[in-house]
C-alpha cells in the first residue's frame, strides 16, 4: 500500500497539503481561469488569517475542520490531465520492453534480417563493454 503513512507528518506539511488540496478542489469547481484566481485568492486569505495561531490545539482543530470541508466539497469529476494518474489516458499506451524482441520466433526474425544482424552486433558490443568495465561474471553454480 503506497498511501500508508510511513512517517510522522509535521503540522506545516499538513497545512501545506491542505492548501494544495483546497486549490485543486477550487480548480475543478471554477473552471475559468480568472474566476479560479479570484477564489484562490479568497482561499489564500482564509489561510493567512490563521497563520499566526501559536496554540497548537486551536490550530489542530482548524486543520481538521479544513480537511473535513475539503472532503465534503469534493468535485464529482476532478480536473485531471489526461496522462496523470486517474486521468483518462493514464497508462493507455503500452510499450513492450525491448527484450521482447529477443523472444521472437526465428521465422519472424528472418523477416527483418538487417535489423537483427545489427542488433546482434550491438549486443556483442554491449557485452564487451560491460566485461571491460566490470570484469567477467562469476560462474553461477546452481
Amino acid at each position, binding site marked *: 500500500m503506497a498511501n500508508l503513512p510511513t512517517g510522522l507528518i509535521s503540522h506545516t506539511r499538513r497545512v501545506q497539503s491542505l492548501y494544495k488540496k483546497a486549490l485543486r478542489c477550487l480548480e*475543478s*469547481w*471554477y*473552471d*475559468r*481561469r*480568472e*474566476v479560479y484566481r*479570484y477564489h484562490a485568492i479568497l482561499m489564500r486569505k482564509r489561510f493567512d488569517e490563521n497563520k499566526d495561531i501559536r496554540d497548537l490545539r486551536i490550530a489542530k482543530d482548524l486543520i481538521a475542520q479544513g480537511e473535513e470541508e475539503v472532503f*465534503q*466539497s469534493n468535485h*464529482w*469529476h476532478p*480536473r*485531471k*490531465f*489526461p*496522462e496523470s494518474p486517474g486521468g*483518462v*489516458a*493514464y*497508462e*493507455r*499506451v*503500452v510499450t513492450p520492453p525491448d527484450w521482447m524482441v529477443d523472444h521472437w520466433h526465428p521465422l519472424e526474425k528472418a523477416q527483418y534480417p538487417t535489423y537483427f544482424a545489427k542488433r546482434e552486433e550491438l549486443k556483442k558490443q554491449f557485452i564487451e563493454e560491460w566485461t571491460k568495465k566490470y570484469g567477467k561474471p562469476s560462474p553461477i553454480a546452481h
Partner: protein
Amino acid sequence: MSICLIYFVTFLFFSVLSFLLSLNFMILDYSLMLEYEMLSINSCSIIMTILLDWMSLLFMSFVLFISSMVIYYSEEYMEGDIYLHRFIMLVSMFVLSMMLLIISPNLISILLGWDGLGLVSYCLVIYYQNIKSYNAGMITALTNRIGDVALLMAIAWMMNFGGFNYIFYIDVYKNSMEMYIIILLIMLAAMTKSAQIPFSSWLPAAMAAPTPVSSLVHSSTLVTAGVYLLIRFNFALTSNLMLILLFIGTMTMFMAGMGANFEFDLKKIIALSTLSQLGLMISILALGEYQLAFFHLLTHALFKALLFMCAGCMIHSLSNCQDIRYMGGLIKVMPLTCTYFMISNLALCGLPFLSGFYSKDLILEVLSMSYLNIYIYVIFFFSTGLTVCYTFRLIYYVLVGNFCFYSLSKINDNSKIMLQGMSGLIFLVIVGGSMLMWLMFPTPYFICLPFTMKIMALIVSFFGAWFGFELSKFTLNDSLKSFYLLNSSLFFSSMWNMPYISTFGLNYYPIKLGSKLYKTIDQGWSEYYGSQNLYSKISNTSVFLQFMFNNNYKIFMLLIMMWVIFMILYI
C-alpha cells in the same frame, strides 16, 4: 494500400449497393426471405434465415456508410498505433455481426450477431490496456451478458413452438401466456443492449474505447441493436409492456439529459446524449409508432456519428484530453471541425431543416396528438429542453471563451484524413432527415394541433438554450449553484447512482458471503472433515502400523501359527 482504405472502399461499395436495393424493394414493396435448414431435432428445425426488406437494407446501408467513414477516419486518428490492424479487424468484425443481427428474423441467427456485438464491443472497449478500460469493458460485457442470457432463454423457450423464426409467430405472442414469456425476455435483452434504466451504467463507461469506436459502436450501431430488435418485435408488445417500456424510456431520457448537464467529459456528454435519444426512440416505440422510432434511429445514427468524430478530432488535437474544462475557444483554431460540431449538435437539438428536426419534431407532434397523461407530456418536452440545454453548455465550454489547456499547444485543422471522413457524413447530416422522410413516409403524417402545442417544441428548445448558456456562464464572484446543492448534483451527475448500484450494489453481499464461505468452508470445515484430516488420519495410521511391524519376526510367525491352531481347534 492501407488496411483502412481497403475496408473503407468495401464498406462504401456495399453501402451504396444495399441503399439502392433498399430503394428498389421499397418501390416494389417487396421482401425476400432466404432459408437454409441446418438440421431438425424433435420436430424443431434449426434454420439459418436471412430476411431482406427495405428496412433491413436501409439500416444496413446506413451502418455500412457510417462504418466506412469511421474506418477512413481512424487511419489518422489511430495513426502510429502498432495494433492498428487488430483495431480495424475488430471494427469490421463488429460491422459483420451488426449485419447478421440486422438481416436475421430468426432468434438463433440473431444471437450470432448479438453475441458477436457483445464480444467485439468488449474487445474494443478494452483496446487501450489500462485499468479504466478494463473496468469499463468488464461492466459493458457483464451488463450485455444479461441480455444475452435473456435471448438464450428465449431461444430455449421457443423450442416449444417448433422453430426459432419469430417473425412467423409475431401475431400470436400476445395471445398466450407461454409466448408472453418470450417477448418479456426479448424486452429485457433489448433494454440491456440499449442501456435502458437499470442497465444504463455501461454506456458512459464504454467511452474508454477509442473515439472512432465510440462513433461507430456506442452511438449508432451497438446501442441501437436493442431498439432495432424491439422494432422487429413491436407487433408482439402488449399494452402493459408498452406502458412499462414507455415509463422506462422516458425515465432514461430524462436521467441521461439531466446527467449530461453535470458531466465534464466530452465523450461522456455525447454518450449521455445518445442515451437520452435512445430513451426517446424506445418511448416513441412504446407509443406504437415503430416507423418513427426507426426514422429517428437512422437520423440519430448520422448526426451522432459525426458528433463523435468531431469530438475525436478535438481530443486528438488536445493530445487525449477529454475534459471540457480544458477546452474553450476552439472555434478560433479549428473552424471547420467546429462547424461540423455545431451542425451535428444543432441537428441533435432539432434545428429546423437539419436531419434531427424531421424525426424529432415529428415524434413530439405525434406525441402531442396522442391521448396521454400530463406526466408523459411534461417529461418528453422537459427532456427535449434538457437536450438543448446540455448542447449549449457543451458549445459554451468548447467553442467559446478562453483556451484553458497548456499554454503552449499546437492546435489546428490540418488533420486532412479525419476531416475528409467527417465531410463524408456532413452532407447526410444536413439532408438525411428530409430525404428519409420523403422515402419512408410517402403519405405524410396528419398532424393537427393548436398553435401553442405546435410551438411548444420551439419554446422548450429556446428556454433550454437560454438555461444552458446561463447556467454555465461564469462571473467573477458568482455563487456556484451546483456547489450549493452538492448532494443533488452528485446524484444527478452519477446517473442516479446507477454505476454504484450495478457494481457494488450487486457485488457487495455476494463477495462478502464468498469470502466468509471461503474462509469457513473451503479453508475450514471441508478441509477439516475432508482431505486434510483424512490425510493426517491415514498417515497417523501408517505410523502406527509401522510401529506394529517393527516387532520381532518371531511374533508374526507365532501369530500365523496361532491362526492355524485356532482353525484346527474350531473344527
